[in-house]
C-alpha cells in the first residue's frame, strides 16, 4: 500500500500539521478541510483525497482529533472533525520543530546565494 504517494513533495508530517492547524481554526468535515486548505493557500496547495482520509484516520487513532456527528453547510449528515487537547499539544510541537527546520533551511539557502 502506497500510503505516502499523495504526500510526495511535502515533508513528512506536513499534511498532518496543516490539517491540525486548519481544525484549530474551526472544526470541519472532510470536504470543508480540502476547500479550506486550498483557499488559504491561494490554490498553491491541493490536498489529495487519497491522502486526506487515511491521514484523518491516522490522527483519529493517535487521538489528535475526534469526530462527531454533525451537519454540513448544506444540511446533510456528515462527520465533523475537531482538534483535541492532545492534538493541540502535538501541533505546537510540530510547529516549533517546523520553524526550526525552516530557519535552518533559510540560512543554508541564504549562504548558498552569496
Amino acid at each position, binding site marked *: *500500500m502506497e*500510503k505516502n504517494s499523495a504526500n510526495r513533495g511535502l515533508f513528512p508530517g506536513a499534511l498532518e500539521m496543516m490539517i491540525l492547524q486548519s481544525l484549530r481554526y474551526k472544526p470541519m*468535515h*472532510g*470536504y470543508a478541510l*480540502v476547500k479550506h486548505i486550498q483557499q488559504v493557500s491561494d490554490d498553491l496547495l491541493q490536498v489529495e*483525497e*487519497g491522502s486526506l*482520509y*487515511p491521514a*484523518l*484516520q*491516522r490522527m*483519529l*487513532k493517535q*487521538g489528535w482529533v475526534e*469526530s462527531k456527528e454533525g451537519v*454540513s*453547510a*448544506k444540511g*446533510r*449528515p*456528515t*462527520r465533523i472533525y475537531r482538534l483535541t487537547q492532545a492534538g493541540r499539544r502535538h501541533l505546537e510541537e510540530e510547529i516549533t520543530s517546523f520553524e526550526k527546520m525552516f530557519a535552518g533551511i533559510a540560512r543554508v539557502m541564504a549562504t548558498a546565494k552569496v
Partner: protein
Amino acid sequence: MSWFSTIFTRRRHYRDLSVTIAEHLEERTEELMDEGMPRDEAEHTARREFGNVALLEERSRAEWQWPRLESLWADVRLAARQLLRSPGISFITVLTLALGIGANTAVFTLTWNIVLAGLPVPHPEQLVQYTMTKGNSVIGLSWPEYTILRQRQNTSSDLLAWNSDEEPVRQGSYTHSEKIQLLTGNAFRVLGIQPAMGRFFDEAEDEAQGAKGVPAILSYEAWQSRFHGEASALGQSLNVKGHPVTIVGVMPRGFEGLTANLHPMLYLPMSFEVLEEGEKDATNAGQLDRYVMGRLLPGKTLRDARAELQAITPTVRKEADPTGIFLGQFFKDFRLVVEPGRSGVSWVKMVYERPLLVLELLMVLVLALCCVNTTLVMLARVSGRQSEYVVRVALGAGKMRLVRQVLIETTLLVVPGLLGGVFAGWLGAHALVAMLGDRGTPSQMDLRPNAVILAVNTAAAILVALGAGLWPALHAAGTNPAKGMKAQSRSLSSKHLGGWAISLQIAVSITLVAAAALLGGTLVHLMTENNGLRVQNAVIADLNLNDLKLKSNQRVALTSRVLQRVQSTPGVEAAGYISAYPMTGYFSATRMFSVDRNQIIHSKPSLFLLQATAGYFDAAGTRILTGKVSANEAGAINNCVLSESLAHALFPDQSAVGELVYHSKMGLPDGADMDPQRACRVTAVVEDAKFVSLRSPAPEMLYDIENAGVERKFYDPSGILVVRGKNTTVAADAVKEAAREMMPQGTTTSVQTLGQLMDQDLSRERMLVSLSGIFAVLALLLTALGLYGLLMRSVTLRTRELGIRMALGAGRGSILASLSRRVLIEVAIGVAGGLALAWMTEGVVRRLLTEPQSGSAVGIAVSGGVVLLIAVLAAAVPAIRAARIDPMEALRAE
C-alpha cells in the same frame, strides 16, 4: 487507545468514513452544478476527481487494522467459502492427500524407527560396532577376539561386549523363559546411560565372576510390569537358570537393549556366562557370539577405525585363535568388520532396510501423483473463476494477492489432508508392524510419534501444497483484464490446461502398477514354487520342552510317547520331529567330509546339520528321490539323509546311498581320521528344501536320523513336531490331544500351520506387496479421476462450440475425434514415459532387493495395458456425453 478498544470502535469509524466521503462527493457535485454542469456530468466529474472510492476507503480503514493479517484472514475466509461451494471435489481432494500423506507417514514411521533412529543413548552416532561378516551373514566375535581387539585398538575410548540369551527366570514361584542380555562391566560407561533407579554394575563386579553375588539390572518395562514400578524391586532376588541374582538397578526408560527390538527383561554381567558354562566354554575361541561396540574418541572417525582394524586384524585373528582351527578354518571366510553402531545389532534393520528404501522410493511417486492431482483440481477451479480474477484485477488487485489467494486455497486442502494423513499413517504404521511377523522378526516395536516424523511429513505436505498450488496460482496471476473480459462470453478451450498432468499421471501410474506387479509376482513365485516343503495340511508344534526340568532320557521317552499318540490318531498321515523350525532364518554350519569311490576327499565346511525322525520327510512333504529313509539299527552306524545338492557335492558322480559321511575332527585335516563312530551312513537322498527361508537358496543339508525313544550321544529331542493330516485341523487337534494326555500339567504346546510359518517368513514380501498394491490402486484411482474430471470439464466448456459444429453438420465421429485427439497424444506421451520410468524403477528395485525378483518386460507392458484400460474407461463417460450433445439444447444453453 488500546488494541482491543480499537477493534470495538473501528466499526463506527468505518461508518463515519463512508458518511464523510459521501458528503464530500455530494458537495463537490453541487458545486459543479452551481457552475452550470448537468447533474449526471457533475456526479461523474466529482467521482473521477475523487478517485477510487473503494480503494481509498480500504486504505483509510487500513489505518485501524493489521492489514497483512486481516487481508490474509479475508483470503482464508474466501478460500474456505470457495472450497465449500464444491464440497464433493474438495472432499475427494482432501481424501487423496490424506491417503498420500498417510502412506508417507506410515512408511516413514517404520523407516525412522527401524533404519534411522539410533539407540537411546547420548551421541549414538559416535558408536561403532565390530562383527564378523560373510555376505549377508553376521555373527559376533569370540571372547578372545574381543579382549585382544579391546587392547589393540586406539580409535575408541573403550569397547564393550554383549550377547543375548533366553533362560528360565524364577521370580518367587513363577518361572518363565525370559530374554536376557549379558553386558561387560564397562558397557554403561561406554554407552553413557544412567539408571532409572538404583545403580549399574561395574567392571570389578563383572570380573569377580559372581564371587560376591550376581548383580542384575531390570529393564524399565519389567520393572513396571513385574514390580509395578516400586522401589522395593531393588535388592530382590531372582533365579536365572539355577543361579541367584540380585536386582541392583533399573535401566532407563526407552532402553531396550543393544539388540534392536529384543526387549530383554534382565541385564547381567558378561561373566554370568562363566558361571553358566564354565570358564573353558565361555572363553572358547570358537564361540563367536559376542557383539562388540565402541565409542569413537573425539576426532576419530569410522574411517580411522576401519583403517586401524585392517592393520590389526591379522594379529587379532592369530592371537585370538593360536590353533587357527576356528578363525583359520571354520570361520575363514568371515571378515572382521567395523560398522556404524548407532542402531546396535538390528536384525529387523538388516531385513527391512532395503524394502523400506524401495517403499520410500515408490512413496515419492505417490506424493508426486497427489501433488499433480491437487494441481489439476486447483487449475480447474482457477480457470472456472476467470471472471472473478478479471474483476479483481480490474479493481486493482495485485498479482501477488491473486497468487496468495490460490496458494491459501491449496493450503486449506492440504492442511486437513496432512492432519488426517498423519493420523491415518499412525494407525497404518501399527498395522505394518503387525505384518512384520512374529517368529524370527519382532512383533514388539515401540513406535513413538516424534518431531522428526511430524516435521518430515509437514515438509512433504508443504512441498505438495507449493507444487500443487504454484502453477494454478501463476495461471491466475496471468489474468489479463482486457482479454479476460472479452473471453468471458466465448467458450473457453481446455487446451492449455492440464494436458501435461495427464501424461505425468499416466506415467507415474504405470510405474507404480509395474512395481506392484513385480513385487506381487515375486511373492506369488516364492509361495508357489517347489521349495521342498509342502505346507498344505501340515502343522508344526513346539512342545516347549525347555520349560520342563527333564533329564535327557526323560525327554527322549516323553517325545516318543507323544509321537506315537499323534501317529495313531485317525486322519494323521505322517509325523516326525525335526531339530529346528523351518523358514525362520535359523541356520547352523557343520564341517563334514566324504570320500568318494575314487578316494577323493570332499570337504563341506558349512553344511546344515539337522536331526530328524524318519517320519519328518513325509510330514514336511520333502520328497525322497533315491533310497529309503530308515530308522537306525541297534549297534550299526547311524543313518542319515542328504539333500540332493549335498549328495551331489559329496559324491559327484555316483549314488550317495550306502556311503559314509564323516564329521571333521578339530585340528585335523579332513580324511586324516576316518572314525566310523563319527560317521553316518546315507540311506536316502531327498529333494532340496528352502529350510532356512523361502527367499534364500536351499542350503546343503544333512539330516541325522534319530529313532524316537532311543537315547544317543548328542541327541537332545527338540520337541518340534511336524504333522501332516487330512487337513490342518485334524493334524493340529491330534497334537493338542496328545499333548493334553501326555505332557505334564502346566506346559504349553504351541501349534501353527506350516502355511502360517511360510506367511511369516514372507512377511517382508507381503508388506511390500500390500503397500505397493495400495499405492498402485491409489495411482489408478487418481489417474482415472484426473482424466475424467479434465475431459468432463472440457466437454462442458465446449458444449456450445460442439453444438454449433453439430448444427453445421459435423458427425458424432468427427466430434469424438476432435475431442480425443489431444487426449490421445497426452496419453501416448504418458505411456511412453511410464514404460521408461517403470523400467528404470524396476532396475533400482532389483538392485535394492538383491533376492531374485520375478517380473520382466512383460510385467511392465501389462501394467501399461492396465493403466491404458483405466484411462479409456475414465474417458468413455465424457466422450459419450459429448457425442450425445443435442445441438438445439447446446445452442440455447449459455
